[in-house]
């Protein structure tokens, strides 16, 4: 065989396909990728240390900035951790409201993630706008309840900051009427696309055993065929009351991650339907009135609580020393840990596939660099 020389190339940090400021140092042999080293830290702001300086409530808006697509889910995970630590009860209505917001987040995240990924494949803007269109409608709902489109800062310890009203429920039902048709359209647009089939099938294969060893979570893990979903494995909030399936892939390639995301959006829709049906009336309240939000103090100890964020397992590990702010505050960020599998997923494929594989992991740099 002809001997060829290997070449090192930088992809990023400023590159539209790296979803933020992320740098990959790739070694290629011709067009084939030999090695990949991810380089982090361009967005590092020592979020965890800020969490040790802030009081518990002050830190809530900071969690919005982790995964800025799903601030509702971040708030939920953080509130749950502090509630576990301080032993706070959450009214049932608040649990349902949180579930509704989480599932809306999942739909908007998956829709845009797939849009961005098709953009990476060369279907520039069309698919992305399809995702963004639905996202806009959901963001309007978020704005109505929380006052902000993306940085929602919506959860409080023991509930949520504002109740949802009849207008919200009517509008949500209207929005949901269009969703099944939207999923069908999206699926039809993608599954019959020659570009997608050629660029996604048998690309970036991550076998089941490797996926587990790499600690990946979320659609990446389920795409590899492991039916692990925290909503089922360790139900939180009121997820044990809903009927839904955990979609899994078979091969573990980019295409499977696609299919899992589409199927998950449909399951989220089912959960939304059931949650709206079961939503308790406002008599129980939407927040625990006994909790002193501003001056909350947690007894010394530690707590870890996790939720199934659209990107994977989002958990907060908080150690308290009995004061009003955390002694140690650690974020288990799904995008960050999913990235550890990137090099293995890319090896042996061409350099053009790297961008697609990275898109299929669905990373957010706010959470990776923290």
């Amino acid at each position, binding site marked *: 065989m002809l001997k060829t020389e290997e070449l090192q190339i930088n992809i990023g940090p400023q590159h539209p396909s790296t979803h933020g400021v992320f740098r990959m140092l790739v070694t290629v042999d011709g067009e084939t990728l030999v090695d990949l080293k991810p380089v*982090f*830290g361009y967005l590092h702001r*020592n979020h965890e240390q800020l969490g040790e300086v802030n009081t518990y409530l002050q830190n809530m808006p900071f969690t919005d900035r982790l995964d800025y697509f799903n601030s509702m889910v971040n708030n939920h995970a953080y509130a749950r951790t502090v509630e576990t630590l301080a032993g706070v009860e959450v009214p049932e209505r608040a649990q349902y409201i949180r579930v509704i917001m989480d599932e809306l987040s999942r739909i908007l995240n998956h829709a845009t993630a797939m849009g961005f990924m098709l953009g990476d494949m060369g279907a520039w803007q069309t698919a992305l706008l399809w995702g963004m269109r639905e996202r806009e409608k959901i963001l309007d709902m978020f704005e109505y309840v929380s006052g902000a489109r993306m940085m929602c800062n919506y959860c409080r310890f023991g509930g949520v900051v504002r109740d949802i009203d009849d207008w919200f429920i009517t509008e949500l039902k209207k929005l949901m009427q269009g969703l099944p048709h939207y999923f069908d359209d999206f699926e039809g647009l993608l599954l019959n696309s020659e570009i997608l089939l050629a660029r996604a099938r048998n690309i970036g294969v991550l076998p089941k055993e490797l996926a587990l*060893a790499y*600690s990946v*979570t979320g659609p990446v893990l389920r795409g590899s065929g492991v039916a692990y979903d925290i909503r089922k494995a360790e139900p939180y909030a009121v997820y044990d009351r809903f009927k839904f399936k955990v979609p899994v892939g078979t091969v573990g390639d980019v295409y499977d991650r696609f299919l899992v995301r589409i199927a998950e959006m449909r399951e989220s829709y089912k959960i939304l339907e059931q949650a709206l049906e079961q939503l308790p009336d406002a008599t129980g309240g939407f927040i625990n009135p006994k909790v002193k939000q501003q001056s909350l103090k947690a007894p010394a100890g530690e707590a870890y609580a996790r939720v199934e964020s659209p990107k994977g397992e989002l958990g907060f590990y908080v150690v308290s020393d009995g*004061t009003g702010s955390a002694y140690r505050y650690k974020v288990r960020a799904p995008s960050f840990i999913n990235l*550890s599998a990137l090099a293995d997923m890319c090896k042996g494929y061409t350099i053009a596939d790297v961008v697609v594989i990275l898109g299929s992991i669905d990373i957010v740099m706010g959470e990776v*660099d923290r």
Partner: protein
Amino acid sequence: MALLARGELRSILQTELPNVLDSRWDTQATDQAEAHGEGQTVLLDFDAVVKAEAIVEVAHFVRDKFGYDFLSNITAVDYLKHGIIELVYQFYNAAEGGPDLRVRVRIGRSPEECIVPSLTPTWPGADLQEREAYDMYGVVFPGHPNLARIYMWDEFKGFPMRKDFPKTGDKYTHVTGE
């Protein structure tokens, strides 16, 4: 392959692998923090505290014997007043779900003591998290393929998440603290 109840791992390790438990802590067996004054950290012994050099053995033990094959999270905590850095490893049973299994390692804060064998050769998912613990807390992981700083730049001195790292005044910004 069964889920372990809270704190069960300690007694199992005592009978099956008696040499791995860290003898400095196995007398306390604290699960709940007692009432302490404000600003007092407590060391919890939830599940098990093992010797640093035994962490690889214990990780394989819980994986092969009980199916805790999913190493989800590695957290380093600096307990300055106790003079130790604690690493918390959280394992999950991917097949059966359920809550996590926490295995702890407690090491000293000096460079000679702050060493824990790496889990990356078997659990490549630990790669980035161990690099983070090295970058922020200065824990050295022998056996790690690429133990470099991850968030801070390579020339950076010190470990910024340690509790005794000065919050104000550094040579990069030329601002002096109070």
